[in-house]
């Protein structure tokens, strides 16, 4: 396999560079000449006398212009025009030919695609033709007023007179050309090669071009158009086919597959297989040969920065840092804890001191004494003391058993705290409300003074007592509830532990059986889940297109939806005729509850099942090394989606050309593959020979013994062998068949035309403006060049 990348350097120039190649014995064949655009302005226009004709090869792919008598055209460019808008100035400009895309960024090219003046191979858009001729003459160096040279321009075979006359008009009127001649490019190419001895005087010229393919028989050096044949397939269709195939295969690289790029790929890598099906079978079987023939294009891709496995020192260093940080944190925590302990101890001491002081003070002075310290009663001090001791103990980190004791103590104290609960309502007194824990302190109050007040207070505060009692009940129940929940959790934990232990024992005593059971359970669970899922998505009637869920044409509802429908319709139509009394009774609304319950049931069951499945699969993974959890059956979607589920790798950015390499040029031989219902190259020769006006065995033999190939598309490797094999199939046995290729299929047409125009008798073949206007359209229709001068 050979991999490569390409770069676009200057306008029209492309070069390939190979990044790496595996150990493959396939040596790169001699590279074809890439098409080069030459658009440098020529400076020697004025050096040519007025009699020197200008030769133009007006092809659907490239436009070539130059002087007669030379071997190379001076200016070559792609025959397209773009009319983008300049981004800053906003004016619409015309750009002819293909240019460096870097410069095009100043223009807004979204609305203007490249346009060609051709439709098939006939010029029909003369405005664009005018832009192209403008550009061509400008680059040839034309200045002064008018083009004062005769022009020889090529056209297609049997050009409709409308196109021909418009072209002549354009040349005469707008450019001031004195005389014009039209010729067929294939014929020029044939004559050129005939002079070089490649082909004989009688022969068949086959020209697979850009948008059409022609076969023209030559008898006595002149083309016989009656025997010619044209199929509307050419290099454009091959490139288009390749582009679409690659876009369909790699949809996420579609942006990279521009038409120019694909054309380059085609020129570099496509070939014609001698027999399509046997070649395809090679690839289908995946033989070594097929491997060698596969080319792979690696798109530029930056792998995500991989972290190198850290070396020993790295690990050690990081560990040390972590250790140090941990140490620091621990120290800080230690310091905080000790400071807190100190604080608490201080507080404890303070409280203890206060209590002792309190004992010494007289009962009467307690409120005033306490007000200074901020506590209201002795009980409060005692409770805060208890809290502080507890937190101190916690801070010191004493074992839990003590904590349990403490909890019990707090429980006991709680019971003390809620004495009111146990006292029935009517026995509550105001005193207990106000000072719930201190009946002792009420001593020598002067009863006679305050009885009245007390009675009043009693009456007013019964409600408050009730409220207080209710609050205490509530608090107690909530704390009790919390404790109960905690206990349940503990119990559950114990239960689970027990179960795990049992499992372990079972496993240890009989590992095989255990594994088997587990696997069976796993299978059963996964089946159930799958089934439920299938029910939900209506089976696999969708074309992989999982946008269903809603009701589409022809998709059946799943069970739940069906049920809902049934309920709704029966409810709607069950009532009396003409009147809808749904909702009059309360039971009607139960309908919706039914419907939602149907749906919910499924979900709950599904969740439980899935949780169970997860547990079982994890268990299986632990004990059975060979177990691989079954992947979720994601319906196999197009290759575009699958890569997104895992991190992108280098392979995702490779475009592989395997079968496409010979599948695309195959359409030249079988236009049926792209839907064009016409004959292919090999059959065309038969058609052409059949169409010849005279039936002459000898002539036919002479024709087939000199089959001449020209045109850009004949540069595919393997073309000659295939053509020969194809023609042999349709000719009688033993007929001489000899397929030759032009010296330079691309430029020979221009060269032939140039040679032709340089001859002295060329001027007889041209027609002037006067001729054109006098003789009229009919004469123009019958105008044909004579190629043998």
């Amino acid at each position, binding site marked *: 396999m050979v991999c490569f990348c390409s770069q676009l350097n200057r306008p029209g120039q492309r070069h390939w560079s190979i990044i790496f190649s595996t150990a493959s014995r396939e040596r790169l064949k001699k590279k074809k000449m890439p098409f080069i655009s030459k658009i440098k*302005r020529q400076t020697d226009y004025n050096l040519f006398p007025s009699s020197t004709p200008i030769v133009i090869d007006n092809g659907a792919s490239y436009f070539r212009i130059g002087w007669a008598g030379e071997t190379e055209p001076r200016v070559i460019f792609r025959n397209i025009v773009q009319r983008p808008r300049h981004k800053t100035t906003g004016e619409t*400009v*015309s*750009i*002819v030919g293909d240019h460096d895309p870097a*410069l095009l960024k*100043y223009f807004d090219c979204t609305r203007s695609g490249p346009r060609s003046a051709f*439709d098939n191979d*006939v010029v*029909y*858009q*003369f*405005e664009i033709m*005018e*832009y192209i001729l403008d*550009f061509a*003459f*400008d680059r040839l160096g*034309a*200045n*002064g007023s008018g*083009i004062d040279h005769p022009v020889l321009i090529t056209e297609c075979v*049997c050009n*409709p007179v*409308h196109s021909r006359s418009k072209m002549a008009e354009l040349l005469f*009127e*707008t*450019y*001031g050309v004195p005389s014009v001649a039209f010729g067929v490019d294939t014929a020029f190419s044939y004559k050129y090669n005939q002079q070089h001895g490649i082909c004989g005087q009688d022969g068949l010229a086959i020209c697979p071009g850009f948008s059409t393919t022609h076969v023209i028989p030559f008898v006595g050096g002149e083309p016989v*158009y*009656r025997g010619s*044949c044209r199929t*509307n397939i050419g290099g454009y269709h091959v490139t288009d*086919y390749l582009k*679409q*195939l690659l876009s*369909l295969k790699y949809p996420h690289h579609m942006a990279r597959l521009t038409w120019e790029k694909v054309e380059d790929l085609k020129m570099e890598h496509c070939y014609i297989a001698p027999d399509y*099906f046997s070649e*395809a079978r090679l*690839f*289908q079987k995946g033989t070594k040969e097929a491997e060698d023939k596969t080319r792979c294009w690696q798109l530029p891709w930056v792998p995500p920065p991989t972290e190198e496995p850290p070396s020993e020192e790295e690990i050690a260093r990081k560990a040390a840092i972590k250790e140090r940080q941990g140490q620091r944190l621990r120290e800080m925590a230690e310091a905080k804890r000790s400071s807190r302990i100190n604080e608490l101890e201080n507080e404890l001491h303070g409280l203890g001191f206060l209590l002792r002081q309190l004992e010494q003070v007289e009962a009467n002075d307690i409120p005033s004494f306490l007000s200074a310290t901020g506590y209201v009663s002795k009980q409060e001090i005692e409770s805060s003391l208890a809290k502080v001791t507890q937190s101190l103990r916690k801070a010191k980190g004493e074992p839990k058993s003590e904590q349990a004791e403490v909890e019990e103590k707090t429980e006991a104290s709680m019971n003390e705290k809620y004495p009111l609960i146990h006292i029935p309502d009517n026995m509550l007194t105001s005193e207990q409300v106000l000072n719930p824990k201190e009946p002792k302190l009420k001593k020598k109050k002067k009863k006679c003074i305050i009885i009245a007040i007390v009675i009043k207070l009693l009456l007013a505060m019964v409600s408050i007592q009730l409220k207080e009692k209710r609050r205490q009940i509530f608090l107690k129940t909530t704390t009790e509830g919390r404790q109960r929940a905690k206990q349940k959790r503990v119990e559950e934990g114990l239960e689970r532990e027990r179960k795990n232990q049992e499992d372990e024992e079972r496993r240890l005593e009989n590992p095989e059986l255990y594994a088997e059971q587990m696997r069976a359970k796993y299978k059963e669970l996964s089946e159930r889940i799958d089934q439920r899922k299938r029910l939900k998505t209506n089976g696999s009637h969708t*074309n*992989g*297109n999982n946008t269903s869920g809603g009701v589409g044409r022809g998709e059946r509802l799943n069970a739940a939806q069906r049920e809902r429908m049934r309920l709704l319709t029966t409810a709607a139509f069950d009532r009396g005729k003409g009147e809808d009394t749904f909702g009059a009774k309360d039971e009607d609304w139960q309908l919706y509850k039914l419907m939602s319950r149907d749906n919910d049931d499924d979900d709950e069951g599904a969740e439980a099942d899935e949780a169970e499945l997860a547990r079982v699969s994890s268990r299986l993974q632990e004990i059975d090394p060979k177990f691989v959890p079954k992947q979720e059956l994601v319906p*196999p*979607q*197009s290759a575009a989606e699958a890569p997104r589920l895992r991190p992108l790798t280098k392979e995702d950015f490779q475009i592989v050309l395997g*079968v496409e390499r010979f*599948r695309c040029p195959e359409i030249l031989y*079988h236009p*049926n*593959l*792209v*839907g064009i*219902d*016409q*004959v292919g190259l090999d*059959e065309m020769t038969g*058609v052409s020979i059949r169409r010849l*006006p005279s039936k002459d065995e000898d002539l036919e033999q002479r024709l087939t013994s000199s089959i001449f190939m020209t045109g850009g598309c004949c540069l595919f490797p393997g073309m000659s062998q295939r053509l020969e094999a194809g023609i042999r199939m349709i000719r009688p046995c033993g007929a001489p068949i000899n397929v030759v290729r032009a010296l330079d299929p691309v430029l020979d047409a221009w060269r032939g035309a140039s040679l032709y125009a340089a001859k002295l008798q060329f001027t007889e073949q041209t027609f002037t403006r006067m001729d054109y206007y006098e003789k009229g359209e009919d004469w123009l229709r019958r105008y044909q060049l004579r190629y043998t001068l």
Partner: protein
Amino acid sequence: MEAEVIEAELVLPTYLSFKRVQMYEKYPKGQSRGRHWKHLKQILQAENYRNYPPDEPNYVNIESPPSMHPCKRLCDMTGYEAPYYDPRTNLRYANAEVFKLVRSLPSEYVQRYLALRNAAVVLK
């Protein structure tokens, strides 16, 4: 215009000395241009080839006939030989794995594959 654009002479100049009639005179701004060009079909119709002798070669005469050979059946996706076709989508496929792919294609891709073969359903 930016300097490099001018230097590269990307843009076609509007005035050329050798032209008798400039573009802006021929096609004044504002008028709809290009819509009055006849397409090939219209050109051929206007040619009236019926009025001329039939054995004279003209553009329509020399078109090739349909092929006599039986058409090759290629798998739409892989390019191998495809003896089968899927009745639901009308795509040709080579073997069972390709069939799985064919059945899993979204309909947009199906139409595009068919359009390659000119067999897509075009609703007009």
